[in-house]
């Protein structure tokens, strides 16, 4: 789902552009055109330009190289902030199903990633321009990643109402993070608490709700009750949305017995050998299916789409997407080889099916290949800096 957002974003921009910051700007410009109003936009742009220019004049230490990306960053970041504010404003919205939640979460993470990406290039200028940012960041970094917190504070610093915007941002980020973790654990109860402040759409009131045992009358005056038997009871039970009541009955005390020592490797080996020697042929279809599941021929139920990839869930998304840092060493800076590798990296960033390790191997394969073919490339007058 995250990568589908990228797909939508990047299909607009051609992959031939070489600078991610430029791409971010393009996306933000398109966002701006869609979401912000006309009278806010020139104001914001003028402010950004003034801020950038005065800083360039005033701060002699800022190099020429840094000043350009800083201005680009503030431009892109400004429109990014606008988009982010609009998103925050629209956050208190009817949320009725999981998909909308996930979309909102991914949209927000994309916005934070846009700021995060432009952060390394302009970190020095950020610190020199907005001194309060880092101080405030340390105050509110309880559960969030410090990079995200720093990015949020840098984002809030460009807004008029800095402290309030920052606290809002951090609150939303924390909420989103808690939501993701609750969803990951599958903890439905806490999820309910988290969504508590979001408005929930109500189902229309059920019409024609007859009482279950209403006596109906035939033409001859004899009454009869609709005898549904047990199906009515079962239907009623199924209608109740939670089968397990929220309050405990406290009939049984929670188990406190110990498992004993963890089974050692030898115990497991013994059990394995025993099962091998005793039960060789499956006696029925169930055992056959169990055997196939153990061998890996049959899927495990309930179906888990990410069955071999549990470790990948903990890998943060920016390692999947921002792969240019692998291109820094081993590849030339200019030329067709670099162009080709940037296309490869763009494709990999949009690929949700490979693990990060596989992507790195992909890039290193190309590195080795181009090293081997150095003489061919020099013959063809390709720049190998």
């Amino acid at each position: 789902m995250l990568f589908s957002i990228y797909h939508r974003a990047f299909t607009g921009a051609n992959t031939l552009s070489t600078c991610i910051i430029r791409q971010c700007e393009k996306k933000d410009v398109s966002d701006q055109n869609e979401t912000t109003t006309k009278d806010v936009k020139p104001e914001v742009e003028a402010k950004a330009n003034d801020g950038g220019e005065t800083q360039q004049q005033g701060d002699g230490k800022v190099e020429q190289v840094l000043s350009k990306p800083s201005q680009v960053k503030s431009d892109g970041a400004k429109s990014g902030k606008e988009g982010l504010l609009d998103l925050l404003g629209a956050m208190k919205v009817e949320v009725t199903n999981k998909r909308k939640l996930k979309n909102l979460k991914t949209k927000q993470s994309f916005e934070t990633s846009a700021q995060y990406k432009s952060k390394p290039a302009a970190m020095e200028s950020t610190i020199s321009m907005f001194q309060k940012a880092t101080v405030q960041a340390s105050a509110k970094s309880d559960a969030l990643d410090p990079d995200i917190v720093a990015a949020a504070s840098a984002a809030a610093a460009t807004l008029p109402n800095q402290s309030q915007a920052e606290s809002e941002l951090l609150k939303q980020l924390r909420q989103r993070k808690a939501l993701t973790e609750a969803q990951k654990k599958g903890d439905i109860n806490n999820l309910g608490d988290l969504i508590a402040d979001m408005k929930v759409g109500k189902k229309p009131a059920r019409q024609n709700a007859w009482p279950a045992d209403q006596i109906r009358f035939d033409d001859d005056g004899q009454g009869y009750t609709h005898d549904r038997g047990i199906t009515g009871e079962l239907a009623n039970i199924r209608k109740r949305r939670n089968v397990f009541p929220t309050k405990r009955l406290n009939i049984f005390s929670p188990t406190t017995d110990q498992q004993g020592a963890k089974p050692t490797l030898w115990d497991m080996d013994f059990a394995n050998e025993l099962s091998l020697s005793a039960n060789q042929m499956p006696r029925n279809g169930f055992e056959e299916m169990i055997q196939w599941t153990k061998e890996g021929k049959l899927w495990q139920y309930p179906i888990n789409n990410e069955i071999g990839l549990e470790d990948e869930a903990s890998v943060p998304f920016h390692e999947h997407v921002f792969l240019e840092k692998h291109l820094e060493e081993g590849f030339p800076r200019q030329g067709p080889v670099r162009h080709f590798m940037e296309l490869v990296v763009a494709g990999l960033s949009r690929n949700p099916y490979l693990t990060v390790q596989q992507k790195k191997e992909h890039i290193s394969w190309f590195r080795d290949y181009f090293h081997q073919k150095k003489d061919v490339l020099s013959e063809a007058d390709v720049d190998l800096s």
Partner: protein
Amino acid sequence: VAYFALGSCWNAVAQVRSYYVDWRMLRDVKRRQMAFEYAHERIRINALRKNTILPKELQEIADKEIAALPRDSCPVRIRNRCVLTSRPRGVKRKWRLSRIVFRHLADHNQMSGILRARW
């Protein structure tokens, strides 16, 4: 003469097929395994070949490299045969069965949810 302690392991004397149906199916299995092994290499070399950015000399060398890979490693040689009879034609992809086997199983009620068409 050797005896075997049968015990409980021979209660179900089901027909266990431990061989492939025919040699062509075996060769197809080998091609699939090989295509899986060489999949990454092939896609990378093809990426080098099929673009207009890299110099032509490099692309010609890549052409020769991919031609030098074993012939069974290309996925084009894989044929979706029927899993039970190894029939190369008339195989429905979703069930991996040939039309004859499919009809046989469906008529004997072994396919969950498959009905004879009627409208």
